């Protein structure tokens, strides 16, 4: 279980995250929804050590993650699919996948097979340069690459960003599949509609604070959430 308590993040005096607390139980899908600049991405980046938090604690089981370096945190079984995919464009799909397993010294064959099974498209294109893939394929590659680290929890930052609606559906199906296979998912999304549908539990973040929480279904039917994030008014 991942426990975040009273997390605070400052960027040169500007408070991006004021006070965020949430839990991610094992083998569940938890989502953080909220508008642009609410502090969702900063939260993920701070969990994995890319950004320093200025207060609060992040606990992974019994281990405190605050102040640890990213490579140590990844070794602990946490990976991040960064916002905007960030695949390595000049390397092949296979090389991209292999770099995901950078910290592992054991054999990769099994995990490669697992990822290829999840994304048959990547197997077809394993020799293609990642930069030549379509947006959706790049997103699949980014997820596949993160899975190569064999994580216990995979954090995804806006996986639907800039993708066609039909592709977004594919991506969410894959997220569910990944979760069913036993990996905990922490999902950050602006596409609240999709995210809440697949989430076991959800937190709404506004101005760096958690303002609402509940199961995905509860929030989907919540009037405030509907008005603010789902674009449908009560009626």
């Amino acid at each position, binding site marked *: 279980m991942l426990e975040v308590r009273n997390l605070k993040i400052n960027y040169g005096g500007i408070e991006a995250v004021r006070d965020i607390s949430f839990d991610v139980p094992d083998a569940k899908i938890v989502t953080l929804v909220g508008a642009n600049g609410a502090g969702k991405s900063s939260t993920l980046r701070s969990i994995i050590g890319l950004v320093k938090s200025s207060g609060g604690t992040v606990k992974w089981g019994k281990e405190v993650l605050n102040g640890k370096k*990213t490579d140590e945190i990844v*070794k602990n079984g946490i*990976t991040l699919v960064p916002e905007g995919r*960030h695949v*390595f464009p*000049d*390397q092949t799909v296979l090389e991209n996948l292999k770099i995901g397993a950078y910290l592992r010294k054991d054999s990769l064959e099994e995990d490669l097979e697992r990822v290829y099974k999840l994304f048959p498209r990547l197997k077809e294109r394993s020799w293609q340069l990642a930069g030549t893939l379509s947006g959706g394929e790049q997103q699949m590659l980014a997820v596949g*690459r993160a899975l190569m680290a064999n994580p216990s929890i995979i954090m995804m930052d806006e996986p639907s960003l800039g993708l066609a609606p039909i592709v977004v559906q594919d991506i969410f199906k894959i997220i569910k599949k990944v979760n069913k296979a036993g990996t905990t998912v922490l999902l950050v999304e602006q596409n609240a509609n999709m995210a809440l549908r697949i989430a076991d539990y959800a937190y709404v973040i506004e101005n760096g604070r958690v303002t609402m929480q509940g199961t995905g279904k509860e929030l989907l039917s919540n009037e405030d959430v509907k008005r603010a994030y789902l674009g449908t008014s009560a009626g």
Partner: protein
Amino acid sequence: MNKTLKKRNLILTLILIVITAGYLFVLQRDSVTHSYAITIIERSCIYAVAAVSMNLIIGFTGQFSLGTAGFMCIGAYVTGILTIPVEMRDQIYYLYGMAGWLHDIRVPLGVALLITMIICGVIAYFIGWPVLRLKSDYLAIATLGFSEIIRAIFGWDGLGTITNASYGVSNIPAFANIFECVLICVVCIVVMTLLLRSSYGRAFKGIRDDEIAAEAMGVNLFKTMQLSFVVSSAFAGVAGGLLAVFMRSAVTSTFTVALTYNILLMVVLGGIGSVSGSVIGAFIVTGSQEWLRFLDKEYVFSDIFNNLAGTAFGAAKVPFLRNGFRMVIFSILLMIVVLFWNHGITGSKEITWDRLFAFLKKFKKEPVQEERA
């Protein structure tokens, strides 16, 4: 890749090795007649090691470090000092006298090069500590500065008992034969290629392509950059050592910033991020500076011109052909290459048999779809 193709490639590689070895053997058997060719090949091979080592940090890791000449300087001196015959040392160090502890230490070339690697690697480790926190231009300036400082230190009187100050180290025993030089260079390049193909190599390229993603994958940016810098510098040192053996001397004036730029030229011309590109770049730059020498002769074209015109123009000379003109042409050729192949000759790809055949096929029939591999 299917098996027959793999087999074909293996056979072609073996044939290439045999032909190259045969050619070198022919050169070596009559080394006096072929001394010019041997010189060019040895120099090209040594520069190829330097170019690949530079490509490792600039092309594969994406850190614009220009300290190559500095590390080559260290390498040249370390290798030189450790290999000159003991009985000649008093004569070489006649002014300062060689330091007692160093005087009787002499090791074979291979051991000297290993020691060079270790020393250069350790120095690079400590230099990299502050310097690698800088980015792009600033890193380039800092490493260039380091390179000049090294040169100043090695030419300093205070270290005369070790480095012989501005007189440099001379009478370094030459290569036993061309195979010794070529083989050492090949081993160096193969080792670097293996490193680039390992997971470390992928981490290097990851940092080059996208630091954020690489870091999120658990690549420790600083440690990985430092590893690349240390390995690159260690092999630059070996290249410097080989150059000293090749020239049979080591003086600081060889290792100016111009040398770094010359190697950078090979890297850029060959293809940033391609080992085979760097090797080709080294051979082309070194070779063409020799092949273009006919441009330095004043009379060649004017004589032809006189014959064609039927009348003698007397001492009239073609105006541009004179000493140094080859460098003008060389620079123009470079500009043309960079204009038309702005990613260098090979780009960031490696030359493989498959690509070579795909390339040749283009000329045979109508253009075929280039395989994206």
